[in-house]
């Protein structure tokens, strides 16, 4: 009892005021502004000062705990201090467990904090399950990525490669360590980079305000380690963070070199004559129309027709006739450069399109044809090849409509001359 412990104040006959003692102790327990030290008027009450100090220390300790300070020390012993220290110990252990949990230790369980223990343990189990699910999902996607025949790249927002699947080495020959950190443009043939950057600029602008854009699909030759290239179709999709910010891109590159070869073959077949390898009528007409729409005047056309093909077919067979056509094609091919368009229009009929060539150039071309024809006859006299030729030049757009017909007319005139000359020659 406080009353029993109260003693007369030093040097005073006055009895301690019990009401005052109770008031101060009550203040220490209930008031936020209780003084740190026992008021001077009560210093003389025996045993009160250490009791007051203990209450103040306990107050401070409890306040610290309530504010999350688990490092403070409480020197006092006894039941109340012991209980508080046990609470501190439990919270410290809980903190350590949470740190372990953050480090991936899902074995942590709490069994000393009542309902909180149930909630905490439930949270840990959910985290463990979610972590396991993420891990399994990562494993699954890693397996798919590492075994995909397509190259899979992950880029950062600045277009640097931060992941390359093993297919990159299989297709291009680069180990992933040689690729990581590279700008994605360096995987492409340098000639195509500017074009690709232009296309991507448009795409990047389009995805800026679109959270779920369609993937960008481009076809581009990729650079291989041996210096060659492989055509690839690249599919690109942005990777976004939770707040929608752009984190980077996922790219999938598929080797389409075989398809590209088929396409090139298809284009060749559709624009070339199967027998001679020259361009065909469709391509000649398309190129003539293109020239007609352009500004590259003058435009000249040489029409050529093999003489006596019918007689060769009838007398020596179609195989001999085909050989004659091929020989004629060879004469024309030799007479012109690669850039000139020499075409077989059908049967024994050929045409040459000379964009930017005037009458003088055409005359030189006709001379070259004749020279090649003569050389051919010397090389292989078994089936002599004679070609009738006619040429015309359009110097104005208005003349373009007539140039083919005029060249044709001149060719037939030349053919007639050949027939007359042939008839005039004495038969052997």
């Amino acid at each position: 009892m406080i009353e029993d412990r109260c003693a007369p104040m030093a040097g005073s006959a006055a009895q301690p005021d019990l009401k005052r003692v109770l008031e101060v102790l009550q203040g220490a327990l209930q008031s936020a502004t209780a003084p740190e030290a026992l008021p001077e008027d009560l210093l003389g009450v025996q045993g009160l000062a250490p009791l007051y100090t203990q209450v103040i220390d306990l107050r401070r300790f409890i306040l610290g705990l309530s504010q999350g300070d688990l490092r403070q020390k409480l020197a006092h012993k006894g039941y109340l201090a012991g209980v508080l220290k046990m609470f501190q110990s439990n919270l410290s252990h809980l903190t350590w467990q949470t740190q372990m949990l953050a480090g991936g230790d899902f074995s942590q369980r709490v069994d000393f904090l009542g309902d909180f223990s149930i909630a905490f343990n439930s949270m840990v189990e959910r985290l463990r399950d979610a972590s396991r699910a993420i891990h399994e999902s990562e494993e699954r996607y890693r397996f798919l990525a590492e075994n995909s025949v397509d190259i899979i790249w992950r880029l950062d927002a600045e277009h640097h490669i931060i992941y390359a699947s093993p297919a990159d080495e299989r297709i291009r020959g680069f180990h992933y360590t040689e690729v990581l950190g590279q700008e994605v443009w360096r995987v492409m043939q340098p000639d195509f980079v500017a074009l690709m950057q232009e296309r991507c600029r448009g795409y990047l602008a389009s995805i800026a305000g679109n959270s779920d854009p369609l993937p960008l699909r481009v076809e581009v030759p990729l650079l291989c380690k041996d210096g060659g290239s492989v055509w690839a179709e690249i599919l690109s999709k942005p990777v976004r963070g939770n707040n929608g910010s752009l984190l980077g891109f996922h790219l999938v590159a598929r080797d389409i070199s075989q398809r590209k070869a088929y396409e090139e073959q298809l284009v060749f077949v559709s624009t070339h004559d199967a027998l001679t390898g020259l361009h065909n009528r469709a391509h000649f007409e398309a190129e003539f129309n293109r020239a007609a729409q352009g500004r590259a005047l003058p435009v000249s056309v040489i029409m050529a027709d093999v003489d006596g093909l019918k007689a060769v077919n009838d007398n020596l067979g179609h195989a001999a006739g085909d050989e004659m056509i091929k020989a004629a094609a060879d004469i024309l091919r030799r007479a012109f450069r690669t850039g000139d368009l020499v075409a077989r229009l059908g049967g024994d009929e050929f045409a040459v399109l000379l964009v930017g060539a005037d009458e003088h150039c055409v005359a030189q071309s006709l001379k070259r044809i004749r020279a090649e024809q003569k050389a051919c006859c010397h090389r292989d006299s078994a089936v002599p090849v004679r070609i009738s030729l006619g040429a015309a030049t359009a110097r104005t757009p208005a003349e373009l409509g007539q140039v083919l017909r005029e060249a044709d007319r001149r060719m037939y005139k030349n053919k007639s001359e050949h027939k007359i000359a042939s008839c005039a020659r004495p038969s052997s």
Partner: protein
Amino acid sequence: MRVEVYRLMQFTLRDVLESKFGTEKADEVFYDAGKLAGVAFYKAFFGNIKDFNEFVLAAQTTLRDLGVGVLRVEQADLEKGAFVLAVAEDLDCSGLPELGHGVCIYDEGFISGLLESYSGKPYTVKEVDCWCTGGRTCRFTAECA
């Protein structure tokens, strides 16, 4: 064996040692005996464990299952080799009245033996709170010597 019988044996043994050799020597004997037990305990139960968390989990499970106490880690600095550990429901002292001083000297040695066996480094363990000082759980600081 019931807890009371174990404690009766331990405290009477301690009383005799104290009366014959003094408190300091008795403490030394209990600490060393506890350490020996800790080393043997580690060898028997945790010999192959290298990961600290796994070690703690195994120690918690084994000590609880054997009724020695409920081990909790309050702080662990593996680099510095400094720990604060708590043992609730301690076999030696839980429920004992206040004596004004800690009595878990044997536990100090026991924990020291466990940590030394795990880390390969000597540890000094000191009890800072005990049932016998009014605590409701025993707390120990352990520092790499």
